[in-house]
């Protein structure tokens, strides 16, 4: 398969669909188990958690819209005629854009010349113009699209609100993918080390000790300087750096479960080890995985911003809140200060992270009352 396939919209749409189907399938399986149904009802009783969940769903929907896309025929800018290949007559397609891009198009198309404050009608910095009497004077020129930029525009006149929206996908992908990448490794090695003990345990423990003794930020710095900045690289690096914690958690819980009477009863019954792990251990640690995923989500989102700011994140090609804050830092030193890019990034981040924290707490309390 050509490498370009992996960069095509086809692949990305399929991947999104696959992930969504997987999530739906898991939710359906779990909904048939009473334990999970009870936990769900428990969460539903917490009004703050429900509101948080609705907000998170809003963010999630934007991220999904930003993950599916398609290419459209290239049209002549004036006539609107569909462009065709001069020889084959085939319709020529453009680069393509995500569904979110198409939705935001009415706003993002409203380009200004440079900075403008949120919902302003005129330019932020005055320009010198000739007055009707012929005297040069400093005026705030009216904007091309007055009062239409919720979070103002940046140096090259792009709408900041659109940038913040486009950054949502980056944040959510990092927040979720990091843990999702870590789960298979942590689950396999954690339960195997805990259940079998012996050299499997020793080896797993050693690998965990080595990986976790490299400070995360330095490991990611090394990883990113070698593989280059980018969203997949960052998710992979953060996944490698974080699977050890989950692995140790699962190992500890497996060791506890291994000695419980119901596992001993299954052993005495002659149930094979792999079947005990699948049937008794994994279902009894699943809640820990879910708790870890939701609790970690918000800190991963925050970490992504910091990494991107430090130059070891998703890089300049991908929109992200970290990049926006990085831009804003120089803007803050201008006089008068340009504050809205920072404000937009801050608002969008808190809008995601605060509900994520509240929802995460509710999930933890519902699934594992011991930790309350």
């Amino acid at each position: 398969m050509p490498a370009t396939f992996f960069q095509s919209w086809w692949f990305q749409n399929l991947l999104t669909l696959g992930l969504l189907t997987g999530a739906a399938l898991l939710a359906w399986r779990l909904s048939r188990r009473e334990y999970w149904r009870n936990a769900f009802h428990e969460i539903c009783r917490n009004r703050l958690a429900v509101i948080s969940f609705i907000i998170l769903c809003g963010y999630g929907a934007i991220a999904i819209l930003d993950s599916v896309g398609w290419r459209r025929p290239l049209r002549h800018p004036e006539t609107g005629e569909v462009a065709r290949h001069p020889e084959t007559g085939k319709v020529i397609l453009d680069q393509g854009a995500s569904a979110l891009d198409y939705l935001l198009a009415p706003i993002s198309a409203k380009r200004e010349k440079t900075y403008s404050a949120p919902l302003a009608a005129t330019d932020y910095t005055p320009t010198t113009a000739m007055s009707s009497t012929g005297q040069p004077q400093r005026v705030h020129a009216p904007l091309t699209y007055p009062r239409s930029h919720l979070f103002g525009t940046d140096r090259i006149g792009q709408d900041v609100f659109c940038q913040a929206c486009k950054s949502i996908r980056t944040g959510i992908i990092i927040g979720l993918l990091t843990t999702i990448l870590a789960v298979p490794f942590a689950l396999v090695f954690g339960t195997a080390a805990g259940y079998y003990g012996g050299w499997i345990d020793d080896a797993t423990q050693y690998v965990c000790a080595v990986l976790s003794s490299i400070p995360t930020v330095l490991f990611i710095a090394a990883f990113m300087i070698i593989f280059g900045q980018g969203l997949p690289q960052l998710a992979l690096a953060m996944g490698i750096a974080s699977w050890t914690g989950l692995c140790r958690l699962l190992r500890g819980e497996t060791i506890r479960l291994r000695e419980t009477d119901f596992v001993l009863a299954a052993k005495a019954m002659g149930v094979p080890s792999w079947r005990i792990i699948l049937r008794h251990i994994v279902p009894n640690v699943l809640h820990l995985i879910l708790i870890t995923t939701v609790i970690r989500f918000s800190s991963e989102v925050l970490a992504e911003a910091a990494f991107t700011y430090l130059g070891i994140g998703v890089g300049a090609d991908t929109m992200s809140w970290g990049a926006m804050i990085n831009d804003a830092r120089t803007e803050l030193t201008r006089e008068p200060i340009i504050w809205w890019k920072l404000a937009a990034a801050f608002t969008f981040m808190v809008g995601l992270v605060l509900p994520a924290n509240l929802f995460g707490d509710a999930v933890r309390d519902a699934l594992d009352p011991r930790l309350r």
Partner: protein
Amino acid sequence: MTHYLLRRLLYLIPTLLGVNLIVFLLFFLVNSPDDMARQALGDKASTPENVERWKEAHGYHYPLFINRDVAGVARLTETIFFRKSLALFWGDFGRSDMTLEPLGAEIRQRIAPSLCLTTPIFLVTLLTNILVAMLAASRRASRIDLAIQLACVLLMSVSSLIFIIGGQYLFAKTLRIVPVSGFLPGADMAKFLLLPIGIGVLGGLGSGIRLYRTFFLEEIGKDYVRTARAKGLPEANVLFRHVLKNAMIPILANVPMQILMLFMGNLLLESFFSIPGLGGYTIMAINTQDFAIVRVMVFLGSVLYMAGLLLTDICYAAVDPRVRFQ
């Protein structure tokens, strides 16, 4: 106890070897010296001769593991693995890829400012976390407890970048209480470090207090607390003499996690406040694509982390008699 500490100490050696191996894999197998040279020289200047010359100048012209051109022990020592990776163990940090300056002196110079920044952050955070968490736990479900928990969630929801930018803007630019950035050794240090330390502490409070609160709640629910109360002890005695000493065990177990968080804070703070420490050095190396510095910093980071780990183990044994009498 000596057995315990000795075993912990001995376990550090294979762990550090593992770290060393990972560093080697990343920096020399994934990204070969040729790649490094091409990256440093740029596409246009990357003729085979230039690449060879660059490698020679930077000491990357050896084979990776075994040098078949020489005899004896040198077969193993005249290699990149030995000279660039194992050498880190005896403090031979080599030279910068960009400026060819020796790294050892530079790093030694930069350790002090870094420690001056992170040690107070660590200690103040630990103390604040313990006190506030104990207050919240002892007044469980009261208004104070709920207010503290709410404050923690809010603190956890704000990026540390915002704290830094906001703090600099408020205290340095608007109120002009402290300088915006910079560093001077000696007594002037306090003036420069006050704000970064305050911000560093603020960033660690939210999650720390919440975690410690669960530790304290766990301890307060235990039987020995009931015994202490049945003795007729005042509540302050129960909390400070009985609960605190037991809660220190999980708190100490969590200290390594906190040390790891310090590295992140250190990088951000040093780069924002222009403090000439190791974090700022790492940022500079990332921006100039200086592999040698990043390589050394990763290794040094784990060494520092493990030193912290060992200190924690000693404290652990001091607090918990069950470990001491093992």
